[in-house]
């Protein structure tokens, strides 16, 4: 058990933008919502998953809708109370604790705000260990968990709870209600018991975000070795490539941003070229025609000077980036995990081979 205050929130937001692996969006508004809640209601208590009783109700909190609308309407004061009432009366028992569903963007921040406003603990766990683009892409799906019953509330006091037959229906219905409510709403999904959370959740993810954020912030203070070495050491990252962006190709299909970024090597990678593909999040990294990393391992592009993570929508010609691979949560590497989030699900015609095996030959 420990406390999450404003300095911790700053670091978690920065770390979460690395774990977003190019996606997850800008956590800025989410960060302000979390800071606002902690200023008003005090620090949040964070629990290790082991501190949660097996039969306790644990509820992930997220937002749904358009980020530009969230940027205008933010979050009100009453949404989380409304979720609490809706969910606890549906299940007939109180919510014991809250948790994030993913470790990227605004959704890494909003559960902190909800925990502060409800005076409930936050559990150091999520369902991805990174960010993914689709609703069912959580470890809880592997364990047979369902996104519904899902509570959806707006700032005006409207609330509802969905029971759906498929994830597709959940998406369709939730989207329709979200637009009617003004385009940005708060939701709880994949509500679960403590035992299930402990079995399938990605443990320690909030702590990991915070540690990464603090390391990025302080990387230049390092005395031993170069900042780059220090960065790789702390993130346990595999150095895949360092280069200058020479081209960015983008295409919007449905709710997703597809594309690829082409890089020319600089420094020790001079003379080589690389290419990173993405669908909201980065999918593959290829150097001189050889794949060095694929989803579900994390492929992160960071600024070569500041080590600040660069989301896919900020990629542009001329930027100098370091491409780093991070190992994904082990459950994603099982056949069940790869069925949900493996390279072939994203249309990449290759088998999944773990990052550390693809990178053998001492590129770390």
């Amino acid at each position, binding site marked *: 058990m420990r406390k999450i205050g404003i300095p911790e929130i700053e670091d978690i937001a920065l770390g979460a933008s690395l774990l977003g692996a190019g996606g997850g969006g800008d956590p800025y508004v989410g960060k302000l919502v979390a800071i606002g809640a902690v*200023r008003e209601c005090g620090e949040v208590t964070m629990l290790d998953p082991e501190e949660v009783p097996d039969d306790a109700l644990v509820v992930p909190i997220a937002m749904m809708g358009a980020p530009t609308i969230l940027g205008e309407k933010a979050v009100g004061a009453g949404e989380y109370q409304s979720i609490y009432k809706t969910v606890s009366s549906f299940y007939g028992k109180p919510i014991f604790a809250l948790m994030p569903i993913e470790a990227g963007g605004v959704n890494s921040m909003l559960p902190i*705000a909800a925990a502060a406003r409800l005076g409930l603990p936050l559990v150091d766990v999520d369902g991805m260990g990174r960010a993914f683009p689709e609703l069912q892409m959580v470890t809880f799906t592997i364990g047979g968990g369902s996104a519904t019953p899902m509570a959806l509330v707006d700032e005006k006091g409207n609330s509802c709870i969905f029971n759906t037959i498929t994830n597709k229906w959940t998406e369709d219905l939730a989207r329709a209600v979200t637009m009617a409510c003004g385009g940005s709403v708060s939701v709880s999904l994949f509500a679960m018991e403590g035992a299930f959370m402990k079995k399938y959740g990605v443990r320690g993810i909030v702590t990991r975000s915070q540690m990464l954020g603090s390391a990025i912030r302080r990387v230049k203070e390092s005395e031993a070795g170069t900042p780059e070495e220090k960065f790789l050491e702390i993130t346990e990252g595999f150095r895949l490539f360092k280069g200058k962006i020479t081209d960015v190709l983008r295409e919007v299909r449905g709710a997703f941003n597809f594309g690829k970024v082409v890089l020319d090597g600089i420094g020790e990678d001079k003379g080589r070229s690389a290419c990173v593909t993405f669908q909201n999040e980065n999918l593959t990294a290829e150097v001189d025609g050889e794949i060095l990393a694929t989803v579900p391992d994390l492929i992160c592009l960071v600024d070569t000077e500041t080590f600040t993570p660069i989301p896919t929508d900020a990629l542009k010609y001329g930027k100098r980036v370091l491409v780093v691979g991070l190992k994904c949560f082990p459950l994603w590497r099982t056949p069940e995990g790869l069925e949900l989030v493996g390279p072939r699900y994203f249309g990449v015609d290759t088998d999944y081979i773990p990052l550390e095996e693809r990178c053998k030959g001492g590129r770390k």
Partner: protein
Amino acid sequence: MYKLGIDVGGTNTDAVIIDEDLKVVASVKSHTTPDAYDGILNAIRAVLETSGVDRSQIGQAMLGTTQCTNAIVERKHLSPIGVLRLGAPATVGIPPMVDWAEDLKKIAVKTAVIGGGFEYDGKELAPFDEEAARAFFLELKEKGVRSVAISCVFSTVRNDHELAAAKLCREVMGEDVHVSVSSEIGSMGLIERENATILNAALYQVAQSFTEGFAKSLADEGITNADIYLSQNDGTLMTMDYARRYPILTIACGPTNSIRGASYLSKLKNAIVIDVGGTTTDLGVIQNGFPRESGVAVTIGGVRTNFRMPDVISIGLGGGSIVRQRPDGSVTVGPDSVGYEITEKALCFGGKVCTATDIAVRLGMSGLGDKTRVAHLTEDFAQKAMEAILALVEDAVDAMKVSADDVDVILVGGGSIVLPAKLSGARTLAKPAEGGVANAIGSAISKVSGTYEQLIDFSAHPRDEALAQAKKEAAALAVEAGAIPETVEIIDVEDVPLAYYPGNTSRVKIKAAGDLSRKG
């Protein structure tokens, strides 16, 4: 008739006089003084003397200034204000100024979030809570506050509530209260727009003092026939009255003016502009005659805003950058600099510090100072330093490009002598003669604009006709502001549909700009 352009920067205050054909008659550089007023006065005096122009012939005077930026960064001369947001029950999760530094937050005497605001489609989110607004204004009045910032959810879509609140504010606090309304200042993104509005409100006394100071310095120098304008960040001018209401719009006019001035001098409408100063070099891009805008949120004094600012990168290289040799023989240039002390400290001026300027003199690229004083620098050392300078600049040029193709480059600024006549990545390299004062020239040649904004029901007025009419209205407003009718162009069109508003209604906002007409 002549135009007088002035640019007040951190180090230098530049002044130019240009004639009716926009030819530069005279230009001077003088030091910026702490109160800016003396620096402006010195520059005006010097440029009048150099040019020999009759002061009664100066018909227009334009000022570009960084005083608002400095006031925010240094937290000086900011006024106490009230901050009112219309948006409850939405937005209350983020109180106003929640992530501001404590010392800057203190400018707000009182903040409140009350009922009001709209949805993205123009539907009312909550009714405007007039009673709460009245109570808030009454309290501010009692506390002696004279400036108020008002923001509202989706006021970029509909500003009815904001305007109703502003009207009420004047009713309660008196006609002379300074009211800043977010829909007139920023774009989408409530927090960033509200932040800019709050800064605008806090700057009202700063604006009053620099507009009055400028008018006074002109009058003191006997320039009494001139219309007075201020530069804003989009490369257009505003009147003194407008600048007093929207001082925040002067933010970042410096880089805009420098980029536009460089474009004007070189006759290039598409190019990368490199402005080399004493300590830093700014790189910007001119696209179709206007600066390319930055895609990222701009932070002023630690406060995030959503202003559109020129996309500029700064590198630590200037005429005064200090050159050093490392023990391993490699040579570094900058980022530290002797700055304005270059005329005392640089080797070629009899000083003891080796600067980038000394390297240029040693390599025969510049005739500044005394070249015998740099003769002891070895050719090898000087070449290595020049390679370091080139690496810095060529990397930065590359970072500003949008593709790998070579581009035209314009070199301006007092420190530009440290760069050679050829850069890799540059198709052509223009080095205009008056490049040293490009920013003051940019200020002098700025256009004037008019903005027309209206809710239009396209079911009652066919869209094409209605838009054409709206464009005419915007052009007429630009002409009213002083633009030459034949030069007026539409520079921005926004057409935001409001689904829940009666009929087929859009909020239409059109901005037109043209060259400033000659007086008389």
